[in-house]
């Protein structure tokens, strides 16, 4: 046992050394046209060795340490706590959620413009993740090309605005429906696939859309993207300094207040908030409807679900279509927020991040997914001061998550369907 521990600790330390030394301990310096490799200064090297020793010691005494941690009073108290009664808990939950939404409505008026901007991005990711949650978390279909539907929504708005003068509000349903249509079209060929095979096909589909956008230069402008996407308007009122659209008035003139660039940012945030709440509510509704139960049944056991007369085609396609619909939704908001989109924004990494949000949040759980979306979007921003290490910190946080809570931040509590027995 002890020997095993030492060996394990030794290897852990060695791996730490192998990973960290080339990254931190070696510097590439350009001298003229040639590049030379120089060692870092002594303090860095000492830091690396301290890290290696810490890893070694920790791994050596890990079990004893973890036992101590488990015995800490506040941790063990939580483990033995009785769960709250179901209905009481639901009541508290709904109050808390209402409170948070109301708070979120007023919050942007008191914080900086940058914070509101970031919050808008968080809300866009929440919408995306809630949509993907239907496909991956509920229906159990691993979709790695989800960003394609996001791109469809964004490009629909951008193109319609450029060629047909569509406003945000007209493009929003069109973008979402077109994305849903793409979801349906992709759904057909992948019906027979599951697991890894499905993941690969969806991954390919995501890339096809991106490459198409990149190369169809005459329509989409290729890598140059599309700019000048209009901001959303409020009943015909624009938020720019000068009115662009015919027959529109400007917001600050109508209300007789001084122009401020912040109005637009806050307005966008509020739109995103309303749409995110709408998304969450609609999907929650779906989860309680028969179709939601059918998704879960299909995820749990496909053969059993089919033996009960559920149509595999209908159930899978509905999940794909609804997931894609909300991706199109958030894509439209994203295009409006950025004012400029290019294929760069719809790379595979985006799909991976949204998937990470769903997995981190706990597959199928809406609150978990929302929390994870907030964490995953804000964490890299908070860690910005660490500049090049922020992705490292992000990765470490993810690994720790998977070690401590493999089921996600808030694993799905199944919504209980009860029939009213007295009627």
């Amino acid at each position, binding site marked *: 046992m002890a020997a095993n521990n030492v060996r394990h600790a030794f290897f852990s330390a060695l791996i730490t050394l192998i990973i960290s030394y080339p990254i931190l301990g070696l510097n590439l310096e350009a001298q003229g046209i040639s590049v030379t490799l120089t060692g870092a200064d002594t303090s860095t090297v000492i830091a690396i060795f301290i890290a290696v020793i810490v890893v070694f010691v920790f791994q050596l005494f890990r079990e004893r340490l973890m036992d101590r941690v488990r015995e800490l009073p506040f941790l063990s108290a939580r483990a033995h706590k009785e769960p709250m009664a179901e209905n009481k808990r639901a009541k508290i939950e709904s109050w808390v959620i209402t409170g948070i939404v109301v708070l979120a409505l007023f919050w942007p008026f008191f914080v900086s413009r940058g914070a509101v901007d970031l919050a808008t991005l968080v809300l866009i990711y929440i919408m995306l993740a809630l949509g993907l949650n239907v496909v991956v978390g509920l229906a159990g279909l691993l979709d790695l090309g989800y960003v394609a539907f996001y791109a469809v929504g964004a490009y629909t708005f951008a193109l319609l605005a450029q060629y047909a003068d569509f406003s945000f509000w007209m493009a929003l349903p069109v973008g979402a429906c077109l994305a849903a249509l793409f979801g349906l079209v992709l759904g057909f060929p992948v019906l027979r696939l599951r697991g890894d095979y499905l993941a690969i096909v969806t991954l390919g589909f995501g890339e096809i859309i991106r490459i198409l956008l990149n190369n169809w230069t005459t329509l989409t402008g290729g890598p140059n993207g599309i700019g000048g996407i209009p901001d959303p308007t409020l009943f015909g009122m624009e938020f720019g300094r000068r009115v662009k659209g015919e027959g529109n008035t400007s917001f600050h003139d109508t209300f007789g207040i001084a122009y401020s660039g912040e109005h637009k940012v806050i307005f966008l945030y509020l739109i995103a908030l309303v749409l995110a709440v709408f998304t969450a509510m609609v999907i929650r509704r779906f989860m309680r409807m*028969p179709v939601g*139960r*059918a998704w*879960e*049944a299909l995820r*749990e*056991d496909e*053969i*059993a*679900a*089919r*033996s*009960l*007369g*559920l*149509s*595999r085609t*209908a159930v899978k396609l509905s999940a794909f279509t609804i997931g894609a619909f909300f991706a199109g939704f958030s894509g439209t908001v994203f295009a409006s927020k950025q004012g400029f989109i290019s294929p760069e924004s719809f790379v595979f990494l985006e799909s991976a991040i949204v998937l990470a949000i769903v997995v981190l949040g706990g597959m199928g759980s809406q609150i978990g997914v929302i929390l994870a979306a907030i964490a995953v979007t804000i964490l890299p921003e908070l860690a910005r001061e660490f500049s090049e290490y922020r992705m490292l910190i992000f990765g470490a946080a993810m690994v720790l998550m998977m070690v401590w809570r493999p089921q996600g931040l808030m694993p799905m509590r*199944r919504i*209980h*369907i*009860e*029939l009213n*027995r007295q*009627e």
Partner: protein
Amino acid sequence: MLVLENVHTHYGKIEALHGVSVEVNQGEIVSLIGANGAGKTTLLMTVCGSPQASSGSVFLEGRDITHAPTASIMRSGIAIVPEGRRVFSGLTVEENLHMGGFFNSKAEIRKSQDHVYELFPRLKEREQQRAGTMSGGEQQMLAIGRALMSKPRMIILDEPSLGLAPIVIQQIFEIIGQLREEGITVFLVEQNAHQALSLADRGYVLETGRIRLHDTGANLLANPDVRNAYLGG
């Protein structure tokens, strides 16, 4: 009730059923016995339309269902208890039952649910428990109960005794007998030949994709070939 006429079924190029004809009449219990790999499950799956028969025809209550999609077959008064139970392990017992009555109205679901709890009082006790945490016998009861939720006129059972203790098997077979009294036609596929044949009105013996023998349950039990091959002499 259910008629298979000269059914051939292929998996790709491999032929699993070589012209099988089986008939199950209204109100009967019919058993199909056979060794591993004889094609018992294939036969059932062909009835359900997955895979579909490559030639021959399947009739359910006079309607040709040979090329009907699985989902529509499963909604037309027939229910199957798949091999290996296949309950939804993450859902509670009650929710599993509700999945069984997916296409019925709430009032109907409530009625069939009460009926299932009458047949299996054990399930009532476990109503809020997750199906995956129950014993094999209880899961088999749940699988049968779930199939009954759609109020089928005919129920197909694929090896209901698989991996269960003798006493539980006894209970399950008693329930199957009870189903016949309620007027439900039963098509039973079993390896447990003795139990299956003593209960059945008629029986078929399937061997490498062909029907070898067809007789009443009692006659098959007495048949020396069957005794040798399936009942251990």
